[in-house]
């Protein structure tokens, strides 16, 4: 006997939508999430933000519907839990408050979403440099508003955070964007397809119009980012546009270069992944139901490739249909027919991605840093050290890791893996999937030992 029919990891849009529909179909569902409440990063804290924080925007509050439907459902939610291992027989090992537990299921859905792409530049490790997503999390969960910030990088989230800050009465002093005319030219060929998602395009245009009207300075084609700490703790942020060098003094540089799929769990399971050129990241290989080569493990939402919240909701429900089919609760035909509406939603939501991926393609200096720019923040390894090691040994990510310690710190490669891939590729090397071993998040030896003292769960 297992503890559930389905264990879902991640309570963002994909995980919530999947949990609700699986439970409506009569499946016993356990939903695990690291946060203290449902919503994921995009709808973070939406269930408790009824205090007129309207500056967060309509799209944010759309998440309420899912959060409320989830709380009415029979889904067993376990919040504040970190999954650190999944075994082949689908036993999921998770930790909460320093104690580990094991839950077993017939199926597992990974809905672990995305993280912001690591965006190294000289000084990105200094206090005062944060991600734009971090600033948004602080607005959503702590009412903290960045004052006189500089938003730097590219991508839709940069504009959204700018508008949220302007509406909240703390406009950024500048938006420094890395995208160039060349990006816009490359993206233009995907524009006709993006028209299928005309509502999303219109929302983007509205954000840009709002920023223009607000009078916040915008710089484009910016490069050579650098942050330096001043004696008073403020930062001097410098960058170059065409032939001019600019310097801005600010307490906060909020950096962003898009988001990338979180693949630590799927990689730790030994599932197949491939390098995706337009997203510049490794993605797990799944079929049109989100099914991996292990038919009892599905992946939905941004964790299987960046698509945004709407696509995540659709893919979560589609994965559940396939699971219900495997459990014998739906016939082949029923599964296929029930998926039509969500397939249409998925197709429509994904139509804008090639356009966005091309328009906000990260600059080379961020993808493949050089010089003294820190690559591994945990072990404090600079780009030049990585490049030297690569020149000497000429090998892949494993050798770089063992000879420099990059990736051996507590973040377990979450910050340095992609920049190292970028450096490898800029040196003409092939992308090689970095291995992930459990525990995929650090736990104490004591916690590990205490697991052995308990009898293992029924199998």
């Amino acid at each position, binding site marked *: 006997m297992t503890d559930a029919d389905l264990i879902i990891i991640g309570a963002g849009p994909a995980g919530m939508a999947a949990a609700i529909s699986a439970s409506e179909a009569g499946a016993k569902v356990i939903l695990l999430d690291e946060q203290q409440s449902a919503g994921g990063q995009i709808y973070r804290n939406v269930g408790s933000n009824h205090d007129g924080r309207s500056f967060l925007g309509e799209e944010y509050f759309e998440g309420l519907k899912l959060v409320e439907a989830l709380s009415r459902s029979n889904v067993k939610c376990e919040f504040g839990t970190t999954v650190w291992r999944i075994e082949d027989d689908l036993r999921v090992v998770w930790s909460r408050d320093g104690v580990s537990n094991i839950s077993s299921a017939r199926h597992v859905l990974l809905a672990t979403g995305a993280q912001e792409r690591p965006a190294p530049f000289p000084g990105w490790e200094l206090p005062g440099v*944060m991600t734009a997503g971090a600033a948004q999390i602080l607005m959503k969960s*702590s009412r903290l508003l960045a004052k006189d910030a500089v938003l730097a990088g590219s991508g839709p989230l940069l504009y959204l955070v700018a508008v949220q800050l302007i509406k909240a009465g703390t406009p950024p002093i500048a938006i420094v964007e890395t995208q160039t005319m060349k990006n816009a030219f490359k993206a233009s060929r995907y524009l006709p397809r993006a028209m299928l998602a005309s509502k999303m395009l219109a929302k983007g245009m509205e954000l840009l119009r709002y920023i223009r009207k607000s009078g916040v300075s915008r710089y484009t084609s910016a490069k050579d980012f650098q942050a330096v700490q001043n004696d008073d703790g403020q930062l001097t942020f410098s960058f170059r546009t065409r032939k001019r060098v600019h310097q801005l003094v600010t307490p906060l540089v909020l950096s962003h270069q898009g988001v990338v799929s979180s693949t630590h769990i799927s990689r730790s399971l030994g599932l197949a992944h491939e390098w995706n050129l337009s997203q510049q990241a490794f993605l797990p290989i799944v079929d049109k139901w989100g099914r991996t080569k292990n038919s009892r493990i599905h992946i939905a939402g941004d964790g299987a490739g960046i698509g945004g919240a709407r696509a995540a909701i659709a893919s979560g429900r589609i994965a559940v249909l396939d699971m219900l089919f495997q459990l014998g609760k739906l016939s082949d035909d029923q599964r296929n027919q029930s998926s039509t509406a969500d397939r249409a939603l998925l197709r429509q939501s994904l139509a804008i991605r090639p356009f966005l991926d091309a328009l906000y393609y990260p600059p080379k200096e961020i993808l493949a840093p050089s010089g003294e720019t820190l690559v591994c923040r945990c072990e404090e390894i600079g780009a030049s050290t990585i490049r030297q090691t690569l020149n000497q040994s000429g090998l892949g990510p494993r050798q770089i890791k063992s000879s420099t310690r990059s990736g051996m710190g*507590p973040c377990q490669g979450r*910050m340095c893996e992609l920049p190292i891939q970028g450096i490898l590729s800029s040196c003409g090397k092939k992308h090689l999937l970095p291995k992930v071993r459990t525990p995929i998040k650090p736990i104490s030896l004591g916690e590990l030992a205490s697991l052995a003292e308990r009898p293992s769960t029924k199998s």
Partner: protein
Amino acid sequence: MKRDSRFKERQEGVETVQMTLDGDIMTAQIGDSVAAAILAYSANPSRHTAMGSPRAAYCMMGVCFDCLVEVDGRPNVQGCMTLVREGMVLRRQNGLRPISGVQADD
């Protein structure tokens, strides 16, 4: 020297808790993560690395581990993943971590 926060001072009217950071009294709002509370309190670094570089929370979502802090005697806690509680005792981690109570630089 304590520097003012990089964030705008928050409105009152939300229930608060009192904690200490390196022995100094620090007030936070209910629902704050430890990392958010430290950011709201001061612009100072929340830790120093083994090589002595200053750091503060970076990603706020459990990815980067730059917000590590000692909470009630337990080292290496992710500040962004831990909610504040009344009476919490926080300590910044500066430099190499000690092992079994032995300071690494002894």
